[in-house]
């Protein structure tokens, strides 16, 4: 009985270590590879770097914002972003009139911001009369290429465009009317090129000069191709985190967290001795399970999320502390060790449940009202508190019982208290 209990105890500890190892380091057996759970957890943009932009549609009484327009705006923005070659851009509609754009690991936030926010209403305007001849909607194709520059000497980056049949017809008529005169090309009311019409353009093909670089021409072509936003958007907030800075934050915070957690481990052993060690073993399981659950939920780990995780370790210990103090009380009442463990756990359960449930109430509210990184914090805390109830109550109990049966854990002095039997 004694050695069997001890063997079972050691087996459980070994199993926990095994899972913890997989969670943190992964496993590589032949051609089968288990990726560490910690690598499956998505990092927030505050840790991996990137740009988050919150845009709001300007309400125009003549042309009110509606669902369909917002949908088109999202599609347009997505098309523009595609040219940036960003991995996993996330574009979400928030509420009735907002759009959030998240671009991970982007190196050049300025270029992205230029591409996203512009309405990009392209207009060809007859200078003489001020009438709009064609708009971006008439453009069928647009691409950047090298073409003849403004001064007619040498090559320069230009945007070559092709109009739809209808647009081509109107453009032909307009060029005919305006030979020797200027047809201005405007983007959001800013002149980008003011060419003088040399001859009739019948086929609807032309070029826009004035781009400083091939990249700039490419972006302009994208804006024209994707079309104008159906609504004009105000930028409400921009968060751009340098990837290097984000990576440093991650590393430094994780290290700070590790030190904090190790200190808690030491504190528990120092204060509660052998039961303290058991608490630490369950804490390892707790951390492992939390990582797995966060990975399974596809939760995003943010900087405040790391704080939440570390804090939750401090709080997870609480369940162990409550149980141990309870068992000590029962022992003081003169119960046997085994009976004290039984009633200690039974009585501590409701206390722990009530106490943690209120914490979860606060966290759910935090999740509901928080945004971005703060939500990540709420999620880790909710997951953490829930799992800690399971590990602290169930696993601690099993381990305590096994150790008691094996004769390793006998009386009060194993709790580090002297002078009491």
């Amino acid at each position, binding site marked *: 009985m004694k050695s069997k209990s001890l063997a079972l105890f050691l087996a459980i500890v070994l199993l926990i270590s095994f899972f913890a190892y997989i969670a943190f380091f992964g496993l590589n057996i032949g051609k089968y590879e288990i990726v560490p759970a910690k690598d499956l957890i998505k990092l927030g943009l505050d840790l991996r770097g990137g740009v988050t932009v919150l845009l709001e549609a300007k309400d125009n009484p003549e042309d009110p914002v509606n669902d369909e327009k917002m949908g088109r705006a999202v599609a347009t923005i997505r098309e523009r972003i595609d040219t940036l070659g960003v991995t996993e851009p996330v574009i979400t509609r928030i509420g009735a009139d907002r759009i959030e754009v998240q671009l991970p690991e982007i190196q050049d*936030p*300025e270029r992205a911001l230029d591409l996203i926010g512009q309405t990009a209403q392209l207009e060809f305007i007859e200078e003489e009369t001020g009438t709009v001849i064609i708009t971006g909607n008439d453009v069928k194709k647009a691409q950047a290429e090298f073409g003849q520059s403004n001064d007619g000497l040498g090559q320069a980056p230009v945007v070559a465009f092709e109009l739809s049949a209808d647009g081509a017809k109107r453009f032909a008529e307009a060029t005919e009317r305006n030979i020797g005169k200027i047809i201005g090309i405007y983007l959001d009311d800013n002149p980008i090129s003011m060419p003088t019409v040399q001859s009739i353009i019948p086929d609807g093909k032309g070029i826009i000069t004035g781009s400083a670089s091939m990249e700039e021409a490419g972006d302009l072509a994208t804006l024209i191709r994707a079309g104008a936003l159906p609504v004009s958007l105000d930028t409400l907030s921009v968060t751009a985190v340098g990837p290097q800075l984000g990576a440093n934050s991650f590393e430094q915070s994780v290290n700070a967290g590790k030190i904090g957690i190790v200190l808690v481990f030491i504190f528990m052993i120092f204060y509660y001795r052998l039961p303290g060690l058991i608490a630490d073993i369950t804490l390892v399981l707790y951390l492992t399970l939390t990582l797995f659950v966060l990975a399974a939920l596809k939760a995003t780990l943010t900087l405040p999320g790391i704080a939440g995780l570390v804090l939750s370790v401090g*709080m997870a210990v609480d369940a162990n502390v409550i149980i141990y103090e309870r068992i000590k009380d029962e022992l003081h009442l003169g119960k046997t060790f085994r009976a004290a463990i039984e009633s200690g756990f039974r009585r501590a359960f409701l206390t722990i449940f009530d106490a943690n449930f209120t914490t979860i109430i606060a966290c759910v509210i*935090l999740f509901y009202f928080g945004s971005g990184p703060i939500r990540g914090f709420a999620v880790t805390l909710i997951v953490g508190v829930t799992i800690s109830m399971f590990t602290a109550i169930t696993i601690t109990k099993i381990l305590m019982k096994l150790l008691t049966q094996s004769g390793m854990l006998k009386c009060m002095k194993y709790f580090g208290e002297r002078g009491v039997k």
Partner: protein
Amino acid sequence: MKTINFMGARKLWFGISLTLLAVGLIFLIINGGLNLGMDFVGGSSIHATIGKAFEVSEIRDIMDKYDPNATITYAGQNRDQVIVRTKISFDNEKRAEIVKAFTEKYSLESNNISFETIGPTVGKELAKQSLIALLLAFVGIMVYVSFRFEWRFGLASIAALIHDVAIMVAAYAILQIPVNGTFIAALLTIIGYSINATIVIFDKIRENIKSERGRKIDYDNLVNVSVTQTLNRSINTSLTTLITIFALYFLGVPAIKDIAFPMIVGIISGCYSSVLIASPLWVVLRRRFKVSGAR
């Protein structure tokens, strides 16, 4: 453990808290309110790893053109990072200019710079949402505690929570630290944490009442016994939590410090209020509002 007479000194505990809150209120009035950060009033912040020693005056030279009132602080363990905060929400163009000024001056890669801009609209919403969130948390906890215990426990625990929130606000009013979204997150976390501690004590009180069944109960003594019995737990849990938060505060990055600092204040206040305020207040409430049929 010898029973400590918490009830006897309850006026002292209440007095200490009220004094602190009064000081906070005075500072709040003198300073004309809290120092609302960019999350609430809009503004911009720039965080850059310069990677070598630099002078604040150099950064000031760059920023003067855009906002002479910008606050510039060192960050990072080696003081090789800078955080610039301003109440102006820069547009894309200005932002690009400033980033360029930094990268050129210190020959940095732009991946070592973070930039955040928040417009004032978002801030107003945050303020409103924060208030709703706090109220909802109070109501939710009040309902749950009243349901699991009884309403006077609920009221006493809410009073302890309001105490913690007020102490945290007082700390920010006195130190004039910018209040941002993370502060609200810290407030809600502390509410969840402090109520946790209070409930453990209330649970003990409830249990001790049950075991006294039929006898006349001396509530002062009952609370003294209950709080003493749970004192180890109250202290140990606060210690373990404080250990982790201190590690984050001293070793973490600025964004983590922003959330760790209010939590340190809150955990200490939460420990104080659940041990020394909530239970004595419950006895006071109990005397004032006696239930019919109560012994």
